[in-house]
């Protein structure tokens, strides 16, 4: 219980009156960026902006971190982002590391998959961690950064466009006040009030099937794997999921009939027998019970004037695939460096449009994947059910059948088709193409210390960086651009050859990485004019 109490204590925050509240009208305070919503996305975005030197006002209408586990699966990509924000170690130390998933049909196992079957990555495929821990660690980090002004119980109630930004009216326990912001980022969740204020629609598909989530506390010897059942003996005809979290908490997800009564189903006395059948015993306590229907939808435009939407406020998916929180974090890492450049006057405001282009395409992909999973779990027509049954039966004996079984396709970083990329001019047999995220690999520092490419990228300042596989003469690195050199004199040593292999490297191979770690361009022989052109394109200056 000590752990839970510590978590509890960490999640209560006090409202404090701010001097901005005594200013009004022409004297209202002016801020470069106001981020609305201190969930995982808003907190991470604020930290990224602050680390880039931007002052951020972060508003949240509550004074505490939400209850329940909610999001639990955080991807390798999210952990790499959190490493840059200085919170990766805390998340991984507390989290439950996993990479194996098993799919069962009835009482028997159909197949298992490993999401990260190879060695040589700093971070695992996934950790499971209750969202409230992630938020608490992010708040701790925010409190170390004087650039961030986090204001609890500050609720935006009106938004008014100005020529040079927006005026926000904010309600507090002491009444309302106004501030001016050059840019506003709405990270205020699926029921975003800012989305309503800009009059944007939020269209998509609602699924009829209901799902019951229960987090239960018990000591059990199940392995730290994701177990998914179709038609299990303990829950006939439906699907079920079991997943481990820290503190001996287990996430259980049970599909219910579309016509199940939500109020009755949620009562512990009704949930308990189902879970007892699943676990085969009654030695557990409930931590959290929730009943929900899925929606898959997104905003048509993620940018409305100078208001940008990130995370659940912009897009919603079903939970099978861990594509909610992880895609929101990808939004944050995508937006932070662009907003920083625009605020510094290094890039035109048009660079922000690429945030919409890249992340709305990612949202489409996430919606497509999670819709397919949901349809597979809850077939709509009889023939659809028949096809699914055929897949499940074929999966017993055939490889292709196993691969067609869809119990959730887990979040991987999107590959962007984006105007910021410079297309390949040389020939490549592998490696991340422009628009894909950088791949990790183990390297040895010239001094002998072992490290990873993702860590070296952070040490280089999380900015535009040339990753070069040397052949003697170093590339001519433009000013302000980081440099990672593998091989050559004083370069990193690729002792296991994994960096070279993962980047399809030959002597002279050079990748231009964006500040979010995505590949902007790559060359077999890097010439300065080509690097400059790719850099300009990736900065939105062209």
């Amino acid at each position, binding site marked *: 219980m000590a752990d839970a109490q510590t978590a509890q204590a960490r999640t209560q925050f006090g409202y404090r009156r701010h001097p901005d509240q005594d200013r009004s009208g022409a004297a209202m305070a002016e801020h470069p960026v106001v981020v609305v919503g201190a969930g995982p996305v808003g907190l991470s975005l604020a930290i990224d902006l602050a680390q880039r030197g931007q002052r951020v006002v972060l508003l949240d209408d509550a004074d505490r971190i939400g209850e329940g586990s909610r999001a639990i699966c955080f991807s390798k990509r999210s952990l790499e982002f959190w490493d840059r924000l200085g919170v990766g170690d805390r998340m991984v130390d507390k989290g439950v590391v996993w990479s194996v998933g098993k799919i069962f049909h009835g009482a028997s196992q159909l197949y298992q998959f490993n999401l990260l079957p190879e060695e040589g990555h700093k971070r695992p495929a996934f950790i499971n961690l209750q969202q409230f821990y992630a938020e608490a660690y992010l708040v701790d980090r925010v409190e170390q950064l004087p650039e961030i002004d986090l204001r609890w119980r500050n609720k935006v109630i009106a938004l008014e466009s100005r020529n040079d930004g927006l005026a926000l009216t904010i309600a507090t326990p002491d009444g309302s006040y106004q501030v001016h912001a050059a840019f506003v980022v709405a990270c205020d969740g699926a029921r975003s009030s800012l989305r309503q204020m800009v009059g944007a629609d939020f269209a998509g598909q609602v699924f009829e099937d209901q799902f019951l989530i229960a987090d239960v506390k018990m000591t059990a010897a199940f392995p730290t794997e994701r177990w998914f059942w179709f038609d299990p003996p303990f829950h006939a005809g439906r699907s079920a999921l079991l997943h481990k979290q820290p503190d001996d908490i287990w996430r259980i997800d049970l599909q219910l009939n579309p016509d199940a009564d939500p109020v009755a189903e949620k009562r512990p006395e009704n949930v308990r027998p189902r879970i007892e059948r699943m676990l085969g015993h009654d030695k557990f306590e409930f931590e959290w019970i929730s009943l929900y229907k899925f929606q898959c939808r997104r905003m048509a435009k993620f940018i409305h004037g100078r208001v940008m939407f990130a995370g659940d406020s912009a897009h919603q998916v079903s939970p099978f695939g861990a594509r909610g929180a992880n895609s929101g974090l990808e939004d944050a890492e995508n937006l932070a460096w662009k907003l920083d450049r625009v605020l510094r006057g290094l890039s035109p405001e048009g660079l922000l449009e690429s945030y919409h282009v890249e992340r709305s395409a990612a949202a489409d992909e996430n919606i497509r994947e999670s819709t397919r999973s949901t349809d597979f779990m809850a077939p709509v027509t009889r*023939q659809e059910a*028949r*096809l699914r*049954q055929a*897949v499940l039966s*074929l999966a017993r004996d*055939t490889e292709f*059948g196993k691969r067609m079984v869809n119990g959730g396709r887990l979040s991987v970083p999107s590959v962007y088709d984006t105007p910021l990329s410079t297309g390949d001019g040389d020939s490549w047999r592998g490696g991340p193409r422009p628009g894909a995220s950088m791949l990790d690999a183990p390297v040895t520092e010239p001094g002998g210390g072992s490290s990873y490419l993702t860590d070296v990228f952070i040490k280089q300042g999380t900015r535009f960086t040339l990753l070069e596989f040397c052949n003697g003469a170093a590339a001519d690195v433009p000013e302000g651009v980081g440099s990672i050199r593998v091989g050559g004199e004083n370069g990193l040593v690729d002792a296991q050859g994994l960096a070279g292999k993962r980047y399809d490297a030959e002597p002279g191979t050079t990748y231009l990485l964006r500040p979010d770690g995505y590949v902007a361009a790559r060359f077999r022989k890097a010439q300065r004019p080509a690097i400059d052109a790719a850099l300009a394109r990736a900065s939105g200056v062209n």
Partner: protein
Amino acid sequence: MALSTNSNFAKPDDAFRAVVEAHRGLTEAQSADLDAALVLVLANHIGDIDVLREAIALAKRQMLDASQQQQQQQQ
């Protein structure tokens, strides 16, 4: 690769009979189950999403034409 609608079997009657006989003695529901599995097995064997989409389009066109004709005959 495009969908081939040439006659690919040396003995087309054998192929047709093989499918027909697989359905002999089955209920409608069993036949539908068999077809579902068979379609997936064959689709995987083809292994080309464009060919599969062409095949689906062709089959769907035939199905719609046939049901339209049936309606006209009933009127």
